[in-house]
């Protein structure tokens, strides 16, 4: 496949064959070497062939192979001539990250971090097959699917201020519970308020370095050594089932002939099925917002119990990593509503966008990029240029480079725990094998991912944080 270098950090697959638009990849030579080893670029090209795609099929710096769309793929579609695709959102709908700031410093938690972590471990259910702490009825679940994090706040989990500091204010208004299948509901009922497993985690972190003091200050991040809490999880089995259900419905309605990859199955955005998927996906997004809202609340309770106070534990922001949304963007100099798919990508809106809450409107939207387990994570800020460069999107994490199977063969969970302990990082998990699968050596270098984001201008560096305590599902 032809890959044309535009500059050191931008590469293009020119429009050819069935492509409706070119594909554009933001990557460094180092990251691109990994990308070329799998089918990421073929997948970016396949996305460029979908009907109604606008401008470019974009690939973020942390990209790796997905199914259908690449992970780290961003694509926008015309609402009339374009499509919506469950594969462009992913199975873990609204997998995302929430960040809380605190008034505590490294010194305040040093002696208590073991206790903090084990108390969080008790209060936040994690692991596969582990049910939630709340017994949920079907009618309450319907409420959650419609209201998202608003439901959680109304029921005593956190405050109204948290909603303002959540993408979509914690609720996608187009959600419809009625088209969520019984199977999805059944999977959702026992899992609300659970972290899950795999790459999902909860970390107590400390600020290592601040790159942009002014923006960091606006986000409530004041100095090196400050303690933060990061929660990474999604819509659990409910979201996975919604994706599975609608892939099947779209296959049965439209067939699979002519698709370069069956996972690219899609429906015209305006079609009955396209709209039904969109509204059901919104319901799953809301479930994930409620999930993170509850987990954040329990974390605050633990801090209050162990350290005497949770005052100052304000939410910095909560971002989605897997989602499709209707947003206004410029195409050919004209502002148009488009259906943006972000699959393993973070919205990265710059100052002034109406979607950003007042408190951040002049700074830009906080972008939270978790690293791999036990390594650094980053806080970035969205930029105005990103709208032009990537429909207001940037990377979402480190991205794997090694299979879980290989990681399991090479690493031992207990050894990882001991090595982290030597660096002053506590680790707890429901499974040591699971820890081995998530070894940081199995991931790309997140430092390089955020460097590319910063230099390209799709998300600028604000602060680097490192873990003090890690809870892995």
């Amino acid at each position, binding site marked *: 496949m032809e890959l044309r270098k535009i500059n050191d950090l931008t590469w293009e697959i020119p429009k050819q064959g069935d492509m409706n638009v070119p594909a554009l990849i933001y990557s460094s030579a180092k990251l691109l070497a990994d990308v070329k*080893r*799998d089918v990421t670029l073929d997948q970016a090209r396949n996305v460029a062939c979908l009907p109604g795609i606008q401008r470019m099929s974009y690939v973020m710096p942390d990209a*790796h*192979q*997905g*199914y*259908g769309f690449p*992970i780290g793929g961003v694509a926008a579609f015309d609402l009339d001539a374009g499509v919506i695709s469950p594969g462009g959102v*992913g*199975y*873990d709908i609204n997998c995302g990250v929430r960040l809380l700031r605190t008034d505590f410093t490294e010194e305040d938690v040093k002696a208590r971090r073991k206790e903090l972590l084990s108390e969080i471990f008790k209060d936040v259910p994690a*692991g*596969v*097959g582990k049910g939630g702490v709340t017994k949920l009825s079907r009618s309450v679940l319907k409420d959650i699917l419609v209201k998202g994090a608003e439901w959680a706040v109304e029921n005593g989990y956190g405050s109204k201020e948290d909603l303002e500091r959540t993408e979509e204010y914690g609720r996608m208004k187009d959600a419809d519970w009625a088209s969520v299948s019984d*199977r999805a509901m*059944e*999977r959702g009922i*026992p*899992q609300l308020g659970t972290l*899950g*497993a*795999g790459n999902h985690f909860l970390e107590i972190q400390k600020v290592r370095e601040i790159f942009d003091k002014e923006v960091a200050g606006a986000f409530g991040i004041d100095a090196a050594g400050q303690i933060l809490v990061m929660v990474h999880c999604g819509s659990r*089995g409910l979201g*996975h*089932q919604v*994706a*599975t259900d609608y*892939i*099947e419905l779209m*296959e*049965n309605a439209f067939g699979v002939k002519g698709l370069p*990859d*069956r*996972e690219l199955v899609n429906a015209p955005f305006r079609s009955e099925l396209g709209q039904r998927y969109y509204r059901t996906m919104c319901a799953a997004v809301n479930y994930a917002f409620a999930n993170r809202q509850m987990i954040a609340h329990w974390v605050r309770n633990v801090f209050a119990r162990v350290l005497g106070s949770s005052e100052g534990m304000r939410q910095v922001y909560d971002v989605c990593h897997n989602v499709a949304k209707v947003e206004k963007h410029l195409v050919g100099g004209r502002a148009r509503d488009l259906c943006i798919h972000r699959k393993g990508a973070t919205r990265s809106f710059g100052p002034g966008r109406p979607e950003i809450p007042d408190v951040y409107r002049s700074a830009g939207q906080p972008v939270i990029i978790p690293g791999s387990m036990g390594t650094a994570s980053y806080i970035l800020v969205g930029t105005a240029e990103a709208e032009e460069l990537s429909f207001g999107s940037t990377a979402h994490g480190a*991205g*794997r*480079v*090694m*299979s*879980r*199977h*290989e990681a399991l063969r090479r690493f031992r969970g207990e050894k990882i725990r001991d090595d982290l302990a030597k660096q002053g990082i506590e680790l707890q998990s*429901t*499974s*040591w*094998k*699971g820890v081995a*699968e998530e070894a940081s050596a199995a991931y790309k270098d997140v430092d390089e991912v955020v460097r590319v984001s910063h230099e390209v201008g799709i998300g600028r560096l604000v602060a680097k944080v490192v873990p003090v305590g890690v809870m892995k*599902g």
Partner: protein
Amino acid sequence: MEKYRILPHTADAKFRAYGRTLEEAFANAALAMASLMWDWRKVEPRLSLAVRLAGRDREQLLVKFLGEVIYLLDTRKFLLSSVGRLKIGEDAGGWTLEAELRGDTLSERHEIHGNVKAVTYNEMKIEEYDGFVLQVVVDM
């Protein structure tokens, strides 16, 4: 005969399942997927659940059959240990499957080390030569 083999895949998990018949290959695919989450050899067959499914083609039938294993884990904490009485049929409307899933309810005795979120069509292959080979990528 080898039941299955786990293959390298960067982000998710890929496996090939083998069988002299399509039925045997489907049953081994379920064990392959279970092995990504728990050790099915260590699970006692204390209970048995009947499943009946239909799909428009063999690929969709496979996605739905494997999806059932995930669904039963999430909703009934069911851990698969073996697959019995598996029958696959074809009629005008597509393909059907019946099977008996044997296993146990998740408890302190078991360790779950991975979380398969969903079954994908990515790189899926159903090949027939001297028996059947199924290739599946699952989202983890």
